[in-house]
């Protein structure tokens, strides 16, 4: 199979990942519309090709982890999905809408379906936790303040932060910020949630809490999730499928079990975190 082929499990291969998943999904056939589709995505930044013809389809309802070393192009991929970056070549389709070649209104419609959890949370420091989560509602939905309060409190309860609603981002820990970022991402009930390094910089307990929240989001809201991570325990715990990026190309797409069983020396070195191997001999 060519490296950059769109890999979608065929109908009937309902392999359950070895890690217990709350909602094992049956993968849709190739013809079913993907939630997100990357077609031959190519991007060069400062003379370096960060994405080199990446093609990938992410089905509705699945949780896909995109892995790779630092500078492999993971975060750049996410930024293309939300239209923060424009590719040099190729396209990104969200629910069938090409977000790379569309007008402002269509891009907004596509973004309406997406919640984005930034690596550094990206909370507005001048606003309280409550105001941060309420911001998308106040800016876009003409609803009464009581309804705003109800919905924000509901999401803060979901991420276990109802008691911190009046604090400023500077007054809460990194893990709490990640959870506030998640509450803000889901406040308008998006169909897709993108997570950029959701467990980076967190202690193992807080990392586990965030992983549980990601699983909860799929269980309770049934969303499509895309994680960008190099935290292997997180990726194996929450994913239905995984993709590995190497030097701007997709090296492999498969289930967690397929990744564990892979004999590819790059994948083996990456998932087992070995210091010796082809990755450390080949600059990313």
């Amino acid at each position, binding site marked *: 199979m060519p490296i950059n082929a769109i890999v979608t499990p065929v109908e009937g291969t309902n392999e359950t990942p070895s890690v217990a998943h709350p909602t094992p999904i049956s993968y849709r056939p190739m013809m079913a519309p993907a939630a997100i589709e990357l077609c031959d995505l190519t991007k060069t930044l400062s003379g370096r090709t960060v994405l080199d013809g990446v093609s990938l389809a992410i089905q509705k309802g699945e949780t896909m982890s995109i892995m790779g070393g630092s500078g492999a192009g993971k975060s750049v991929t996410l930024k293309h999905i*939300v239209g923060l970056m424009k590719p040099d070549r190729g396209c990104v389709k969200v629910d069938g809408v090409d977000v790379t070649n569309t007008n402002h209104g269509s891009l907004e419609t596509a*973004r309406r379906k*997406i919640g984005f959890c930034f690596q550094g949370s*990206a*909370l*507005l420091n001048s606003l309280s936790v409550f105001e941060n989560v309420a*911001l*998308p509602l106040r*800016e876009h939905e003409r609803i009464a303040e009581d309804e705003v309060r109800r919905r924000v409190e509901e999401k803060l309860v979901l991420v276990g932060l109802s008691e911190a609603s009046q604090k400023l981002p500077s007054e809460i820990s990194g893990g709490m910020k990640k959870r506030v970022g998640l509450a803000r991402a889901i406040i308008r009930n998006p169909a897709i949630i993108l997570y950029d390094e959701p467990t980076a910089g967190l202690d193992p307990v807080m990392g586990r809490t965030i992983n549980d929240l990601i699983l909860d989001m799929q269980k309770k809201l049934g969303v499509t999730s895309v994680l960008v991570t190099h935290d292997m325990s997180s990726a194996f715990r929450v994913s239905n499928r995984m993709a590995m990026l190497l030097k701007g190309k997709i090296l492999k797409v498969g289930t967690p079990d397929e990744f564990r069983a892979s004999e590819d020396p790059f994948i083996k070195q990456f998932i087992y975190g070995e210091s010796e191997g082809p990755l450390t001999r080949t600059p990313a």
Partner: protein
Amino acid sequence: MVAAIVKAQRWFENSCAGAGYTLDLFLRAAGQIPLLGRKRREMIQQLALTTLGSLPVVFITALFTGMIVSLQTGQVLRDFGQESSLGYIVTIGMCREMGPVFTCLSLAGLVGSTYAAEIGTMKVSEEVDALEVMSIDPVYYLVMPRLIALSLAAVALTTYANVIGIAGGALVARSNFDVDLEIFLKNGRDALKLKDIYGGLLKSFLFGTTISIVACAQGLRADGGPAGVGRATLRSVVISFMLILVFDYLLTWMIW
């Protein structure tokens, strides 16, 4: 030699790109003004912060500007026995030039640098990206309220600076040159035309607009972490200073 030419060419290209971005940002921010009602609270907050926060600096700057103008011109006028003309010179000088220019140079350092650092920090910490992902236009959310707030604050603070500067000039005229306060003020009133007042205030309005749009543009173009924010802040102040002086010459030429 070739390296120097390449460097100069790169600098020129970057400068043109920066100027184009700033102009485009201004047009986009101006296009958002009809939505000011929804950002009223933020605009008033910025206006209050800008105006009240700048009062002490503007007071000192204006007071000493008026005193220096009075002292320097008074010494020359004394040779001709024309000390009583100080009222004309200080009042006209403050309202036409010193008030708007010195107030806005202070604002470029005080407020423009704050805007650039604030927005630059938001840019490098992905807060601006977060706004875009939430379909909240950063120009509407961050730039437009600041643009209006600083333009209005510049006018209010220039009015205040004019009064303080004239008072400082009168103080020196009285203490150093024995010019009667009443004569000083009467001469000032006689010399001052409506055009001097609104011309000066128009200048300060345009300088305020320039400072805020330059600062916001530099902030939004910041990259490369804290060092990038520092560079954006520095560029914001330097560019604002230069543009204030260039626009001052052009406006003076056009108005008077």
